């Protein structure tokens, strides 16, 4: 078996293909940021999760500290149970506040963690007690309209 120029070209082709795949994974995709080493699991109940999806980021102060691993509906509480994996590098105290936020006006939804003041830290399997669900735009608008309408009524009563 002899080596030939064809081998060289095929070798370049294969290396180029693998390099393109790597570049796709690293530069275009988010493989680098999803690879969180060891994690611990924390869960929280939310009244409404809006458009939160599994694998959505968990952020604290805007930095990704973990990912949502599972979303389930608790039939007894009638609330959503969100399980998330948080990097073991980061420690959060037990009265951390978890809220579902939206990046930008219409962007994807993520969980924001805000540290509290407790001295004890969250451990694997703990539940976050202080939560705030997603803001539903329709509810917000109806609240706004309702308050506007009642303002109008107040004014009418004043003139009487």
């Amino acid at each position: 078996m002899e080596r030939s120029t064809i081998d060289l070209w095929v070798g370049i082709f294969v290396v180029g293909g693998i390099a393109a795949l790597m570049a796709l994974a690293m530069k275009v995709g988010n493989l680098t940021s999803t690879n969180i080493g060891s994690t611990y699991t924390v869960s929280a109940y939310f009244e409404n999760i809006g458009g939160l999806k599994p694998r959505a980021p968990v952020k604290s102060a805007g930095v990704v500290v973990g990912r949502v691993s599972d979303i389930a509906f608790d039939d007894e509480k009638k609330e959503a149970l969100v399980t998330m994996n948080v990097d073991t590098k980061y420690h959060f105290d037990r009265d951390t506040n978890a809220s579902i936020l939206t990046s930008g006006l219409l962007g994807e939804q993520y969980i924001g963690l805000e540290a509290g003041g407790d001295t004890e830290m969250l451990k694997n399997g703990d539940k976050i007690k202080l939560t705030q669900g997603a803001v539903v735009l329709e509810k917000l608008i109806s609240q706004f309209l309702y308050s506007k309408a009642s303002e109008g009524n107040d004014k009418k009563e004043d003139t009487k």
Partner: protein
Amino acid sequence: MFDRLIKTVCGIGHRTIDRIIRLGFAARFFLYSLSCSGESIRRFPLVIREIYFTGVLSLIIILVSALFVGMVLGLQGYNTLQRYGSSEAVGVLVALSLVRELGPVVTALLFAGRAGTAITAEIGLMKATEQLSAMEMMAVNPIARVVAPRFWAGVISMPFLAAMFSITGVFGGFLVAVPLIGIDDGAFWSQMQANVDFHEDIVNGVIKSLVFGVACTIIALFEGYDAPPTAEGVSRATTRTVVNSSLAVLGLDFVMTSFMLHGGN
């Protein structure tokens, strides 16, 4: 009148049965080439030679069209997105449409036109000039010696070609968006990285291109092997290769996309 009607019905039935027989023969051909592929893996230089002809020589057309496809996506995407004040999302648009759809599909269509036709014409002529029969006379299995290496070469080349198509297209989109239009460099890449998922987008794209590679190559090989041994027969087989591969690619793409999007949510 009645006679003509009977003839028409007979003609339709004849053609239908003919198609079904061809389909069955194609399936048997596919399975037989798979069962012969052990030999072609043992003689890997044969496969490497075919990767050169199907993969390496298709590179130029793939890369040049990818660059233009990416640049056009960048221009069109910017034109629409700037109306909604989110022109930074052009990177996401270019990357997602390339990685999910255009990369595998356009590569497969170009591959069918560039490499598939060559395979069909080559095997059709081999059959017309009785080279395949000559091999059989020498106790060389033509499926194992000629068909299987080309099959594996096509299947191996396709994902690499699609990946290179996607990355070149993203680069083309970058060229239009950042130096030409003036979108912020960091926003372009960070939005792209935030929204392109490795498993859901890139791996699914690779799976698609693998399936397209199998479909395009086996259609090209079968049409060549089944071609009538005449000049006209080979030319018709070449045309059928392009038509059937394109239809198969687009149809399979719809089926796979519907599965993948369901899996994602």
